[in-house]
């Protein structure tokens, strides 16, 4: 049974969503959410009403088939000891049914909140043919590190192929139920690179806790987190990229709160302090003045910048 996103993808937002629309077409993401029958009413339906609508395709993976929700039944039991089995079967399901419908394949929990538009930005400078996967990188046990399960991780198409191939050739097997660690071990064995998901200011984008903890909490030095993170940990405002991708341990009402903060509540006219490199690099984007003949100074300046860039390109192209 093909269970794809019934909403036709794009959730309408603002005045100019062209960049987001373009990325939606160019960076196709299939999200699969790890859940179970007892969580559908209290957790998963809130995932369904919020962030998962922004995926190109979303599939809810459970131990049992539920045609109403809908969920795919993986034929496992429920419980923490089934986590890696469910992950293996879920990725195999996605490979068998949807490999050609997406470029990247994200695994998330039913208490993970993902900002899919920001995930597309992280992935935009990579191709699905690269053997790579991204998430919040942990360092112990695996030489190149592995990605936190709760914070969500995303495999390229090639990484997914190699994962499935690894199980076919027994290079990868079900060694333990620690899903994220085992995934990391398999990825290393089949030559998939652990990517760096941090933004241009080296701030993390995938987060293993809720924003409140990353922004305000002081973790005790004995807490495992300090020993696990691959990159140096920042507490306070530098903990988290403006263009963060995920948070974990997000409860039902917090899903809506995150959706409100991300896609709705804003400060009128505010010029963000952090602009990602691509937000500034719009060389060939035609500003409204050329299209509509608008007269504001802002547009005139944009026009000038574009014309200068075009002239520069022409000079480069035409010079011997």
């Amino acid at each position, binding site marked *: 049974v093909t269970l794809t996103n019934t909403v036709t993808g794009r959730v309408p937002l603002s005045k100019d969503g062209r960049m987001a629309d373009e990325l939606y077409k160019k960076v196709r993401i299939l999200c699969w959410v790890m859940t179970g029958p007892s969580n559908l009413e209290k957790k998963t339906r809130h995932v369904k009403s919020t962030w998962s609508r922004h995926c190109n395709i979303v599939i809810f993976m459970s131990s049992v088939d539920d045609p109403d929700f809908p969920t795919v039944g993986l034929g496992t039991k429920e419980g923490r000891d089934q986590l890696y089995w469910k992950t293996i079967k879920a990725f195999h399901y996605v490979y068998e049914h949807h490999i050609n419908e997406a470029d990247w394949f994200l695994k998330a929990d039913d208490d993970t909140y993902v900002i899919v538009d920001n995930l597309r930005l992280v992935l935009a400078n990579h191709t699905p043919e690269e053997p790579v996967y991204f998430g919040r990188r942990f360092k112990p046990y695996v030489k190149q590190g592995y990605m936190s399960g709760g914070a969500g991780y995303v495999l390229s198409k090639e990484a997914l192929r190699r994962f499935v191939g690894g199980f076919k050739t027994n290079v990868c097997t079900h060694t333990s139920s620690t899903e994220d660690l085992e995934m990391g071990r398999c990825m290393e064995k089949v030559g998939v690179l652990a990517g760096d998901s941090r933004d241009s200011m080296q701030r993390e984008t995938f987060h293993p806790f809720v924003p409140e903890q990353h922004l305000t909490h002081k973790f005790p030095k004995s807490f495992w987190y300090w020993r696990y993170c691959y990159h140096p940990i920042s507490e306070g405002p530098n903990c988290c990229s403006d263009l963060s991708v995920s948070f974990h341990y997000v409860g039902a009402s917090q899903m809506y709160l995150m959706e409100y*903060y991300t896609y709705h509540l804003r400060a009128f006219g505010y010029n963000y302090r952090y602009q990602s490199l691509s937000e500034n690099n719009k060389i060939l984007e035609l500003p409204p003045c050329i299209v509509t003949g608008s007269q504001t100074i802002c547009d005139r300046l944009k026009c000038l910048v574009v014309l200068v860039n075009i002239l520069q390109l022409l000079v480069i192209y035409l010079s011997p």
Partner: protein
Amino acid sequence: MFSEGGSFVKGMLLGGLFCLVVSLLASFSPSTESGSEDHHNHHHVKAASKDELTHLSDSHIKELSNQVRVYCVIMVQPKILVYWATAAETWSKHCDKAVFYTSEQSKALEAVDLNEKDEWARLRKALKHAYDNAGDLRWFFVAQPTTFAIIENLKYLVLTKDPSQPFYLGNAMKSGELEYVAYDSGIALSYEALRRLVNIFQDEDKCPERGRALWKLSEDKQLAACLKYTGVFAENGEDAHGKGLFNSKSVETLIKDSMSDNPNNVVEGCCSDMAVTFNGMSPSQMHVMMFGVYRLRPYGHNFLDSLVFLPPEGSEND
């Protein structure tokens, strides 16, 4: 028996008459309060619509940017030091001028010490001080540090309003016949409203400093009563769709309420995208709101607002 009944009735009549006369004199009645939706259909102030904003000329935009600057009057006390510190570290940095007014000095944080225990008297002194030190600022926002404010959205609300006209905006409530702006969700005053207010402060009959003798009214109601004498009335601040912008509850509570009331449309049914205030959030929840408002966003969605507000100097969390 009859004569006792008769005196009883006479007594009741006299008492009732006395009560009526006293109520008329005092012109208040301690009846229950109702929300803005029930009674006042005629005191709303809406933010300008998208269309109104896109047809502004460049010079007009420059003028408006200047006119819409805000003087924040933040009423603090040492007993709520952690909220005082949070306001200083977060939203107040977005005021063009933020002045903290305290009941008594604290060694930890700076403020104008009004040296005044009575809350109404303190508010009066703060407002007078703000008026005297306004410089060329024309909008005033009064809040307690238990409120979180998004000043840019206050500017959005008053963008096309003339501050030389009286405006008294916020979450408008009604108590009997008196419409007032709730203190806990912030009070916005135009220069003209404040000028009239400071003027009537001098009238001890209409606007006594030590409160009304019969019932000790809360400061926000006293403020409304004084302003009413000057011809200034409370108005509910709303976005272009009519949604209230000043919230007396926390965002977490409003989301939970919306999950009950609008389970199929929780976020849209909850709060305005351009909300100005929320009340009753913990300090760490306020830090999260700071991140959510001024930093966290989805890549690729650009708002082409007619005005631009730059981030404040020397700040890291916005």
